């Protein structure tokens, strides 16, 4: 029997527990993602969608719950160990690259993901540079000639494109995209979205994408999750996802907002009867 790429059961996480700023981010998330599926995750601010991604990657530790990659329990693995399975692109374009290192060096580091980094391995031989240049050329961003440019001088869009290439240069079992176009201007965002689509399709990558854009969520992927208050409240898949329009999604948001206006116990009751 083959396992799903990702299995989450009963994830709970609270920020600053026991303090006045206590904030429940995840309260019981169960999810199973099959190989090759592209899942979009939407939700208003504070719904827990970014925390969910961080919990999968291992950058936040869970209060309760189990994370499995291909059947293997990785709940107690540190982030860098889970990275053997995961490629990541962050919301902040500064997060994904090392600014003082060149484009080639960043890519070389990325191609070491999931491997031991040897002292005797020469960082950038001619053959390796040529291979990297070829990958960059395929992205058609003009970065192929800028192998020796420090990434600190690249634009936000260029950096996100580079980070996407770095996340996928070694094929990840799971690609995590955390609002990776949110900080970009519309043109760069469009470019990065197109690259994302191409890459995911070409390598048939299993992908989890958090997004703030309803259009993106509707356009990309074969499954859509709607998160609210630390839970997955809607799961559109297959034909339901294909039929989904932006207006439908907005309706759902409105409904959730109305629920919020009712007091907490009533909301709980409503949730039980409707969700």
């Amino acid at each position, binding site marked *: 029997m083959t396992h799903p790429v990702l299995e989450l059961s009963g994830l709970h996480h609270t920020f600053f527990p026991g303090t006045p700023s206590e904030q429940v981010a995840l309260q019981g998330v169960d999810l199973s993602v099959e190989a090759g599926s592209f899942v979009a995750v939407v939700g208003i601010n504070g719904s827990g969608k970014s925390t969910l991604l961080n919990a999968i*990657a291992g*950058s936040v530790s869970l209060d309760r719950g189990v994370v499995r990659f291909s059947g293997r329990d990785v709940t107690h693995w*540190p*982030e*860098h*160990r889970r*990275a*053997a399975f*995961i490629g*990541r692109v*962050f919301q902040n374009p*500064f*997060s*994904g*690259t*090392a*600014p*003082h*290192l*060149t484009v080639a*060096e*960043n890519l*070389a*580091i*990325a191609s*070491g*993901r*999931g*491997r031991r*980094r*040897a*002292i*005797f*391995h*020469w*960082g*950038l031989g001619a053959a390796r540079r040529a291979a990297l240049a070829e990958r960059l050329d395929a992205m058609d961003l003009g970065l192929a000639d800028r192998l020796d440019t*420090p990434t600190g001088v690249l634009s936000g869009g260029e950096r996100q494109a580079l980070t996407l290439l*770095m*996340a996928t240069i070694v094929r990840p079992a799971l690609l995590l995209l955390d609002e990776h176009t949110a900080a970009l201007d519309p043109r760069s965002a469009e470019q990065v979205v197109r690259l994302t689509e191409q890459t995911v399709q070409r390598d048939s990558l299993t992908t989890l994408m958090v997004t703030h854009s309803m259009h993106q969520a509707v356009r990309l992927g074969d499954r859509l999750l709607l998160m609210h208050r630390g839970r997955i409240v809607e799961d559109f898949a297959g034909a339901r996802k294909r039929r989904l329009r932006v207006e439908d999604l907005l309706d759902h948001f409105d409904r959730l907002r109305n629920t919020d206006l009712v007091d907490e116990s009533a909301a709980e009751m409503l949730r039980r009867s409707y969700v």
Partner: protein
Amino acid sequence: MNLLIGALSVGLLLSLLTLGVFLTYRVLDRLDLTTDGSFGLGAAVAATLLAKGVHPVPATLAAAFAGWLAGAATGVVHTAFGVDTLLGGILVSTALYSVQLYIMGGGDVSLAATNTLPGLAEQAWTALGGPPSVSLFGTSVSAANIAPLGMFIVFVVGSMVIMERFLRTDLGMAVRATGDNPQMARALGINVGLMVTLGLVLANGLVALSGALFAQYQGFANVQMGFGIVVVGLACLIVGESLTGRRGPGWQIAGVLVGTVVFRLLVAAALRAGLDANSLKLVTAVFVLLALVLPTAIKRIVRRPARPTAAG
């Protein structure tokens, strides 16, 4: 001339210290105060072994090894107990004070009667038929002064080249990425804690080596030798960066060497000019300030007339 050669020698020796500071302060992007302790530790270990009759080469290597241990201690305090490296460094260097006293069995060890690396260089000079003293620019310079300089040049430049190469290997790039963007490093499977520890180990090894060589050069080790030495390393690093820029590890390491040597030469020039001893530290501070401010000022002056043409 003796002063010049002496200043060059001290500059070369201390450039290993600066290289260690570069590794922590620039590459790992954190100030490592273990430096103060490991400089004295290197001196203490080398001097104690030399006084016991150990050959200078193994004694110096043992000093570097002791520095690795000091760096590893700070790394472990940081990774295993989650203590910030700044505080970890303070704790380790404080503890190292007692360790040095224990190793030396007291506050200082004299190397007057023992063989040292500079001593070996002098013997090699004589064995190769070098004269007991040479005349340079009309001053007589003894073999004891010029032979070690040759050794230091080979030794220090060799260390610099090795470090530059290392920083471009896969492992070296992982260390650099860790300092540059730890979030990205983790996401790409780099064990950030381990890389920080590795960086601290390498840096403190270099610092201890610098201390060991310095003790042998001046003829004694003293428990107070390392006090505030991290500031000396930082000053030299910044002078160097103002000369070579920060365009990648090769340039920066070159800056480490040039910066330290220039810094020591400036001190020597001030002494030579008959500067009042009391104002020496003030003048040193002004040098560093100038090194920081001048390059940008010069760039501004040079660029100003060029701007209209660049725009047109």
